[in-house]
């Protein structure tokens, strides 16, 4: 009898311990926050600079990760040694949801928040920090010049409506090019990706069936095409393209050099003005400058298919997602200072940091809008 009650006691004790541990786990973040606040305010507070050491945690987009990890983290250390910036590559969706939940201070994302998300979590700011682009690549042996393609034709390929490379729609765009009579193998990104967001937004803007069908997002419900390959990451897509002749896919601009070394070609795309353009720095800049004229106050905007003879059609803003209301005055100050530094063309937004990771600086007329958003960050509950 006593043995039995002992056993029950031990079991109950075990349960109680685990419940207690779990309880602590859920409380952890708030405890940490209050501790930070306490230590920071006790050291006195100032407006222009932070008093004590402050941690700023970033997580999210794998495309933005090299900018943070290789460039900004070390550079910002010398700007303000009080602020400890940490970066993590978790994917845009995770970055956004962690920023909304408050587990990180900065969520890095290739896509701005959707209307529904903005309604659900008011007080989230979308601050552009760089311009990125993407090219359409293909493995077509024997074709040396850049193939001319339009968003409409690419959408039809991914819908399975255009099945062969020598389809009349492709031939019409490329007079004089001898196209092979081979089935097209479309390659997609299987993992959640900002590249998919850009690509599907381009198809949505240029093909009405795509707009009413798969639409755009970081992953979409691809129409069924029997030999389509879903590959993981830009490296996976480049692999799948180079291993499969007659394939087509979309690849982030930072992979352009590596992919062309693998023997892949990239397309000259038809822009809104009907001109065929390549993803050169000048053409990306031209598109960004056009797009920056229509940026709304909250800066959530697609830069796909901008007008202008030289505008390259697939570009976007890379965003930092932050909370307008920060848990402490010190955190708010540190975050504001960092964001101001990051968008300043003579500081964080200089090509010194952006070029090595294949981003372009923000167009100059976007800065006042970002400035207004950053100024609205405040401390409070």
């Amino acid at each position: 009898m006593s043995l039995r009650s002992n056993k029950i006691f031990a079991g109950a004790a075990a349960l109680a311990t685990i419940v207690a541990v779990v309880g602590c786990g859920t409380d952890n973040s708030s405890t940490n926050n209050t501790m930070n606040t306490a230590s920071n305010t006790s050291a006195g507070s100032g407006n222009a600079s932070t008093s004590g050491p402050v941690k700023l945690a970033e997580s999210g987009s794998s495309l933005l990760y090299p900018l943070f990890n290789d460039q900004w983290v070390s550079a910002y250390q010398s700007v303000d040694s009080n602020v400890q910036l940490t970066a993590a590559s978790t994917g845009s969706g995770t970055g956004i949801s962690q920023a909304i939940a408050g587990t990180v201070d900065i969520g890095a994302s290739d896509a701005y928040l959707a209307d529904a998300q903005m309604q659900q979590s008011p007080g989230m700011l979308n601050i552009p920090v760089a311009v990125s682009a993407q090219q359409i690549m293909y493995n077509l042996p024997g074709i040396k010049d850049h193939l001319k393609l339009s968003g409409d034709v690419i959408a039809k390929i991914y819908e399975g409506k255009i099945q062969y490379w020598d389809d009349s729609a492709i031939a019409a765009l490329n007079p004089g090019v001898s196209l092979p009579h081979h089935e097209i193998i479309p390659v997609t990104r299987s993992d959640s990706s900002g590249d998919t967001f850009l690509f599907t937004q381009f198809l949505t803007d240029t093909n009405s069936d795509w707009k009413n069908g798969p639409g755009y997002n970081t992953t979409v419900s691809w129409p069924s095409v029997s030999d389509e390959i879903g590959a993981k990451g830009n490296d996976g897509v480049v692999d799948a393209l180079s291993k499969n002749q007659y394939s087509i896919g979309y690849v982030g601009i930072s992979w352009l050099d590596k992919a062309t070394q693998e023997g892949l070609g990239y397309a000259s795309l038809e822009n809104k003005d009907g001109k065929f353009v390549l993803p050169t720095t000048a053409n990306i800049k031209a598109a960004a400058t056009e797009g920056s004229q229509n940026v709304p106050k909250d800066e959530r905007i697609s830069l796909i298919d901008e007008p202008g003879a030289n505008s390259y059609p697939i570009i976007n803003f890379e965003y930092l997602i932050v909370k307008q209301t920060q848990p402490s005055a010190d955190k708010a100050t540190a975050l504001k200072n960092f964001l101001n530094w990051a968008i300043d063309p003579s500081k964080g937004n200089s090509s010194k940091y952006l070029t090595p990771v294949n981003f372009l600086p923000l167009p100059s007329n976007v800065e006042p809008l970002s400035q207004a958003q950053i100024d609205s960050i405040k401390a409070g509950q």
Partner: protein
Amino acid sequence: MRRVSSASKAADRVFKVATGICASSPVLFLLAIGIIVIVQSIPTIHYMGWHFISTIQWNMGSLYGSMIHKNGVSVPSGASYGALVFIVGTVASSVLALIIAIPVSILTAMILAYRVRGPIGFVLSILVEILAGIPSVVVGLWGILVLAPWVSHQFGPFLRSVFGFIPFLGGSTGSGYGLLTSGIVLAMMIVPIITATARDLFRQVPLLAREGGLGLGMTTWETVRYICLPFIKDGLVGAIALGWGRAMGETMAVLMVSGNAINILPHNIYSPISTMAAFIANQLDSAQTDATGMAVHALSEMALVLLVITLFTNLLARFLVNRTTRRRSVKAGANG
């Protein structure tokens, strides 16, 4: 009688609590995971019902568009969660892996247990165990760089030309990313598990029984077939069930070579597929940007289906083991 000091009493109490915590943690973890997966799945179960496992259209809907209300839940417009493609992909690739792995494992195990002695046996055993320890992402990389091109250019066309008349073995051999490559990669990963268990089982067969067989003039093959295999059958079924479970839950290697098909069922053994585990890993990040949260619920329900299928195969294996032992004891009773 020894006087028990208070220190040792306290130590005993700590021991009891510590063992209590440790012993109950597997059950609690299982409960916690099970409950969370079930609770998270409820909204999708309301929304999709049985269509979740019977339709092939997977669409998170327009996350940047408007929300609609249906069956008491709100979802992005156009959302449809049909997991049949992923269920078929998971079952087909794991069964294909078993078809390849079972003969390879059993024969390897037999050689290791009976045929090789001394340093060669030792080295072979170590190699099998090292194979089990290769991280799945490395196997996946090998799959992309070596296996997929080989399947696409050599093995696939060969299979088609020899066995093309059999359904699912003919037709387009595709790109090398697909069911066949996934099955081979999975087989590589479960061979060590089944081999190691089967080797230990073979060693448990009494020497007297084996020698008796050889004494009766049986060949080595006959000894294995009529004496050893019946003896270890129960354990072997368990080992295979273990390998099957591993094959169904494997994520990374399959994700890299499966072709990640969506909205389309495989039409032959070379077609791209997608498994439940790989699909969850692929989509979770995007799912978190769904303001209604329904996409995450749908992935939870897929995790639930995966759990249920794994549990079901485990129970099936146990049932098979029980049935054979019962039959044998009945036979023994009749003889006695």
